[in-house]
């Protein structure tokens, strides 16, 4: 459903992505792991044109995009079929939780207000926040804000959701509620591409894991094989490191 070929991106002289290929099938939940600076967030941002890749072909939903040469119109259309959940939630601070969800429907997709309201309320209900619909982001906890952001993402009925370290800005006691919502989405068959440091999530929820280091994919495979018998030495070193820090 989504496929990228040979994606490259540099910031100045720093090569962040050095020829990454990736294939996502419908219903896949793919966890992208890797140390800081490995390029995983940049990869995700390039897929949604938040960063302009220097090179690379994206095939998504039957359309082909030459990443550095895609028109504004094509980008806008592509974005309307996808959703993005940010590390820092990025809710619209001047809008209530409900308005955050309806904005993309009413303004972005010209849906009528009543219909958008119903869809948004259902989305908020799904993330367990229908009682917070009229709260502003500043009145919500970090976990609640991220759940509103997920509601905002699912309300537009996207074909895929990109998650960029969705729990990294949260206090440990708040990550659980966000991960639970993501687990529920995965169970319902949502296609998800998740950059994360949550090994537990990668192990139990994702069906595939991609391990990146130094701007390229070191190893990828189904999550069980990945965790039980990693092939590459760098993967083993990374998992040992993570294992140690989890044991502490």
């Amino acid at each position: 459903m989504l496929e990228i070929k040979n994606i490259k991106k540099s910031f100045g002289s720093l090569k962040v992505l050095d020829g990454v290929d990736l294939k996502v099938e419908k219903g896949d939940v793919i966890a992208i792991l890797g140390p800081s600076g490995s390029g995983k967030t940049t990869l995700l941002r390039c897929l949604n044109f938040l960063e302009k890749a220097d090179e690379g072909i994206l095939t998504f939903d039957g359309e082909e995009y030459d990443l550095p040469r895609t028109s504004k119109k094509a980008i806008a259309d592509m974005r309307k079929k996808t959703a993005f959940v940010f590390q820092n939630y990025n809710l619209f601070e001047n809008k209530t939780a409900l308005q955050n969800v309806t904005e993309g429907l009413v303004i972005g997709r010209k849906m009528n207000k009543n219909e958008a309201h119903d869809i948004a309320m259902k989305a908020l209900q799904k993330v367990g926040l229908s009682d917070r619909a009229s709260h502003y982001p500043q009145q919500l906890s970090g976990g609640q804000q991220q759940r509103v952001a997920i509601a905002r993402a699912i309300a537009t009925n996207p074909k895929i959701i990109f998650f960029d370290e969705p729990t990294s800005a949260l206090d440990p006691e708040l990550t659980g509620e966000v991960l639970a919502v993501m687990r529920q989405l995965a169970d319902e068959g949502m296609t998800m591409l998740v950059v994360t440091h949550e090994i537990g999530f990668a192990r139990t929820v994702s069906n595939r894991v991609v391990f990146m280091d130094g701007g390229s994919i070191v190893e990828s495979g189904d999550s069980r094989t990945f965790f039980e018998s990693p092939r590459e030495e760098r993967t083993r070193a990374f998992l040992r490191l993570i294992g140690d820090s989890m044991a502490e």
Partner: protein
Amino acid sequence: MLDTKLWELLIDSFPKMLMPGLTVTMPLTLISFTLALIIATVTALVQFANIKGLKQLARFYIWVVRGTPLLVQLFIVFYGLPHVGLLIDSFPAAVMVFSINSGAYCAETIRAALEAVPHGQLEAGYCVGLSYLQTIRRIVLPQALRTAFPSLFNSLISMVKDTSLTTCITVTEMFMVTQRIAARTYEHLALYIEVAVIYLIFSTVLTKVQTWGEKKLNYYGRKAD
């Protein structure tokens, strides 16, 4: 000290000063400031959006206007432009100069406020399917105006007092009327203090409006800590 005659003069001249305050000073300020806000918003947005050419033009405008005295600007427009055939009445000349002058200062205030809105909200806007302009208009600008609000009120209050300069280009506003009464009665100290008090009353009312406005605009909670 204050004798009865002076008291009578002060009481007698109070409405004479207040009237041009209400019919000239305030309209001049409110019209000019409204225009200034429009100029400022456009000037700030072309810089924020980084539109080539227009951005440089905006910087040039701000550089010139902030770098020259308001009084000189008034003189150029009212006494200077007639030499090239542009005769402008004193009141519209004042409106023109005040809106262009204050527009430059407010543009910087609004630009800073636009840049203070977290960039991630723009990205979130694109990702939910909003265009650049929709994101600016619905998400970024409303937040920026709240941030800019107290500083914009600074500019507004400054403008109320700066309108006294227009007496030099023959606008019959509060201060000119005061000067005329003083010239006739020789009570300079008392009368100029009196007009100062009226300016203070105007500023006080505006300060109250600012406090009220800030409360209204604070509907979505405190800024992130």
